[in-house]
């Protein structure tokens, strides 16, 4: 069973779609991803303000950007966002996903509520949180809880965690949805067998649910990690990268360099860095998780 599935690629299949069908997607990908990438790589060797023609200046941008502490600060911040986002979002999404996978009606109602943030745009979420976190008119003041009226977005030591929290608020529903779908795929027979063997709920969760969700965890983690690398809108609306450099993540650094400071050559260097790091992370994740081998997890089910 597993063998035929794994070796399926080589088997002639009459119903397999024609290879030509890949052409539209390939052309779109080429026009909108590969070519712009090549252009950005080219621009990274030029000095360009967006108004006059780009002037070739060799590796000057690369030397300048790779010697700039702001770039390393941005990289370090993006790295922190990746790690903390994963640590915060994964357990919560896993629990909510598994919980809402149950067929009970109250769970269906709750899951509808949990997924609400999914339909809000990032900008709307950021504006709403900006208002809620306002030290003078926000949540803390209106509820009369002094603990909540901190200088959330103005304190350089707090602001990164606030940003990670808001990002988690937006993305946990999406990852819960993945886990919900994954959990519903687990055959009930596994749980029935475990129950007969006397396994409790916690034991069932760790010995059946989590291992069975392995591929979902990999998918969700890949999306989280690579997605964390490109967070822009929420952070930009919330803090514009401030105060100072406290939330100037790599994509934000790229935008501010390119479009606020009109240094499109320098911004292209950062863009290329972003692509390379994103690719390496995605490759590493699929390699080390064994996702690329697509092992069936239902052997013996």
């Amino acid at each position, binding site marked *: 069973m597993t063998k035929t599935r794994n070796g399926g690629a080589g088997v002639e299949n009459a119903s397999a*779609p024609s290879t030509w*069908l890949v052409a*539209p*997607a390939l*052309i*779109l990908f080429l*026009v*909108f991803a590969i070519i712009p990438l090549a252009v950005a790589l080219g621009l990274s060797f030029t000095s360009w*303000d*967006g*108004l*006059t023609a780009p002037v070739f200046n060799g590796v000057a941008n690369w030397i300048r950007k790779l010697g700039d502490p702001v770039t390393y600060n941005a990289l370090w911040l993006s790295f922190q966002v990746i790690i903390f986002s994963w640590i915060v979002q994964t357990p919560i999404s896993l629990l909510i996903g598994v919980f809402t996978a149950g067929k009970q009606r109250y769970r269906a109602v709750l899951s509808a509520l949990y997924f609400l943030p999914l339909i809000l745009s990032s900008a709307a979420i950021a504006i709403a949180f*900006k*208002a809620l*976190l*306002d*030290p*003078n*008119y926000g949540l803390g003041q209106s509820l009369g809880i002094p603990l909540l*009226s*901190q*200088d*959330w*977005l*103005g*304190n*350089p030591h707090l602001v990164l965690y606030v940003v990670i929290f808001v990002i988690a608020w937006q993305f946990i529903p999406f990852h819960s949805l993945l886990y919900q779908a994954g959990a519903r795929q687990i055959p009930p027979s596994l749980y029935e067998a475990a129950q007969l063997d006397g396994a409790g709920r916690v034991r069932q969760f760790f010995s059946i649910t989590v291992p069975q969700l392995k591929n979902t965890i990999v998918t969700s983690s890949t999306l989280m990690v690579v997605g964390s690398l490109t967070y822009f809108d929420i952070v930009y609306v919330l803090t*514009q*990268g*401030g*105060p*100072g*450099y406290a939330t100037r993540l790599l994509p934000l650094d790229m935008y*501010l360099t390119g*479009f*606020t*400071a*009109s*240094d499109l050559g320098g911004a292209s260097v950062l863009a290329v860095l972003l692509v390379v790091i994103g690719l390496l992370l995605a490759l590493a994740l699929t390699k080390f998780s064994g996702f690329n081998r697509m092992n069936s997890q239902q052997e013996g089910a």
Partner: protein
Amino acid sequence: MKNSAPTRTSPRKRAVLRASVLGLVAALSVGLAACSTGPSSSSGLSAWSTTADRPYVEPSIKDWNSAHPDDQIKDNYFGTNDFKDKIRTAVSSDQAPTLVYNWGGGTLKSYVKAGLVRDLTSDLSGKTDWTQKIVPSVAQAGVVDSKTYAVPMSATAPVVLYFNKDVLKKAGVEAPQTWDELIASIPKFKAAGVAPISLGGGSKWPYLMWIEYLVDRIGGPEVFQNIVDNKPDAWSDPAVIKAGEMIRQLVDAGGFADGYASVSADTNADLALMVTGRAGMLLQGSWAYSGIKDIDPKFESDGKLGYAAFPAVDGGKGDPKSLAGNPSVYWSISAKATDAQAKKALDYITSDVWNDSYVKTMTDAGNIPPLTDAATKVKGDFATTLSDMVSEAPSFQQSWDLALSPAASAALWTQLDLLFGGTSTPKQFSDNMNKTLGK
């Protein structure tokens, strides 16, 4: 694509393919449209403005269009940030609007350097009736290397110190005339349980107004002029260092409302603190005035509103009557326009901009036109006082972020953020800003 319900003869595969091809065609045609050349509209005249100036620009273009059916101007309006993004790519392309809206200063300089806007000096030499209407210090921001590339088209917006008179009375404070009085008033406000000064640090740009005025009061307008002229180490001028130290002094004394770094000026949260009596003072542009009514319609009629020029600094070289803020917004004419198009665009400017109905729309909304006879036209105490201040001001410092190059102004926002937040010292501020000179 009607009746697109799937039947046996049109398998889903084909529908998917067709959809992808359609998508591709659409994508390509967008790409082609962006590459196509030629005039952007049939008459060839177009104007891009922001929604902020739409109230007077739109009716005036409508008037022009009904009087000149053969030379229609196609007008478009964008949000300020959208506009900045759009114009950057459009201005150097063949889609450039004939009338290019800009803030003068650094942006205009970069347009001039790239040869994107027309030199209007000789075109305007025969239009002295029109050019003489405008306050010279305001017109100055449209001049690069003593040639005129842009002319004012919008209200003038100086920055003033607003007060809540109620709060001042409660704290037993007189409106501060000097910096020392301002510093001395801080403990009195605090004793009365209110914040001395409201500041919208979350929006970053309000920080600018403090350093602009302090540098001007301490060292006069020459200090910033040296920075604009890219003189070496211009940011290390003693006046800039002193201004940085005074900002630190004010922050450390608790002059600004708690959490000021999170307060947003874009949503008028800084204004609300002053109007609702939680802070005594606010340094803001004249544009904030119209927001007061939205927060408390009776604030001005109850006599709570006070306003004055920025305090003088003892021993400073600058004239306490000098102003800072946004002198105006400007029209330039694209260098891509043909001579005939440029002539018509200039005809529109000299006949319709600053005509009676244009000025009336502006003054009715409580704004101050940058005209020499503005005092006779403005309405209300606030606009009258401010227009007197504008006409008496020996210099009108353009907002630094507009006067500087984009690279320098982007750095300035971040460096000010660090200076106010106490992460960098006045010396570090100057050192870091010196690196942006000439960029």
